């Protein structure tokens, strides 16, 4: 869990989960043993950028250039925090 989300943090999808685009649902989903979470549009946009290489700060920058003019810092941080609490994300340990 993260108390204050640090912008330098590099998240990756936890090994129990697989992210994929589901045509039939028209959304991104997280698949895990015997279950599935449907992600809303913005959650999907965030999650698909999480690749274990990109920091939270870089992720937000990338989203800003994809959605110019949208104030999204807080929403993205809140979602990433939730995703950590849900166990969907892990930190990439610094080498």
């Amino acid at each position, binding site marked *: 869990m993260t108390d204050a989300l640090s912008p330098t943090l590099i998240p990756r999808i936890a090994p129990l989960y697989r992210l994929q685009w589901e045509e039939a649902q028209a959304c991104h989903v997280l698949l895990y043993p015997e279950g*599935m979470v449907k992600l809303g549009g913005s959650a999907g946009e965030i999650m698909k950028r999480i690749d274990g290489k990109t920091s939270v700060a870089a992720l937000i920058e990338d989203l800003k250039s994809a959605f110019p003019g949208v104030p999204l810092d807080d929403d993205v941080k809140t979602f990433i925090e939730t995703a950590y609490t849900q166990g969907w994300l892990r930190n990439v340990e610094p080498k």
Partner: protein
Amino acid sequence: MSNPSNPPLGKPLWLLAELTYRCPLQCPYCSNPLDFARYKDELDTDGWLRVLREARKMGAAQLGFSGGEPLVRQDLEILIAESRKLGYYSNLITSGVGMDESRIATFKDAGLDHIQVSFQASNEELNNYLGGTDSFQHKVEMARLVKKYDYPMVLNIVIHRQNIDQIEDIIKMTIDLNADYVELASTQYYGWSKLNEAHLLPTREQLARAEAIAHDYQVRMKGRMKILYVVPDYYETRPKACMNGWGSVFLTIAPDGSALPCHAARQLPGLSFPNVRDHSIEWIWNESPTFNHFRGDAWMKEPCRSCPEKTKDFGGCRCQAYMLTGDAANADPVCDKSPHHAELVAMVDRLTSTPLATAIADRPLVFRNTRNSKEHVT
């Protein structure tokens, strides 16, 4: 087929592929039909490949390979590879018997996502007795290999009167084996377990103690291992939302190709289950009379029909309603609004006030095997 009073048709998100009824184990609580010996004509590889493709097109995302023991099928590798290609999240639901390191590695390469291994108990003697085979050491070895090959691992233990008092040892075993999820699943009473319920239904005291222990470990293991504890619904006053509603998200294909809204539904009288050899999955799911039979709420009787909770539990389990009241369209008698609820309570009292030793002396446990199954083939 749009009926404005019914919600839009859901997608068969969950496909359960029961590849075979063959199984080297003989669990006395097995959920396979009593007369499984009747169904010998299994779908071939091409038949299953077609099922996988058609169901995926209909929106299926979760795929369970189960049985029987799915490892009996030598074409499992082919089916796994195809499911990865199609984009399924594939779950192998196995006893571990029939597995070895090279198969675990091959499945990994083919793209299998997750393996669920079942244990019968945490001690070798009871495990082997309940499974009717010396399988314990092999299961332990397989569970370790599943983790070695970096799969998410669910351990499933069916909980009942004969192993519930060892629940703490069971949980400790799963921690020791590094499980990611643990399902402590109380026996559901249909099929073989209904036959053996006097040996299996735990007492209220046993249950309370086990629940406290499971809860304690849930808190302790938070963030490291998820523990799911499903209590036997015979002790509840509201039924479970069985299968999340009939024909709502679950599609089971039985070994012979019959399509079922729930793996236990085969026992329901008056329904004919469409077969994938004769029909497309699309027709089966959308149009077949059987999948529409208990869809929505038009079929309901009182007290469900006018009950505000009907959108939450869909009136419970059709099989339980049929077995305990004789009519599958009745409310599940677990519900205390059901006029049959008192009978259920009396039955539970009668079963659990009979000492286990007496129950065993009255009639020995019936193991799930072909010989015993043949007695149910009429």
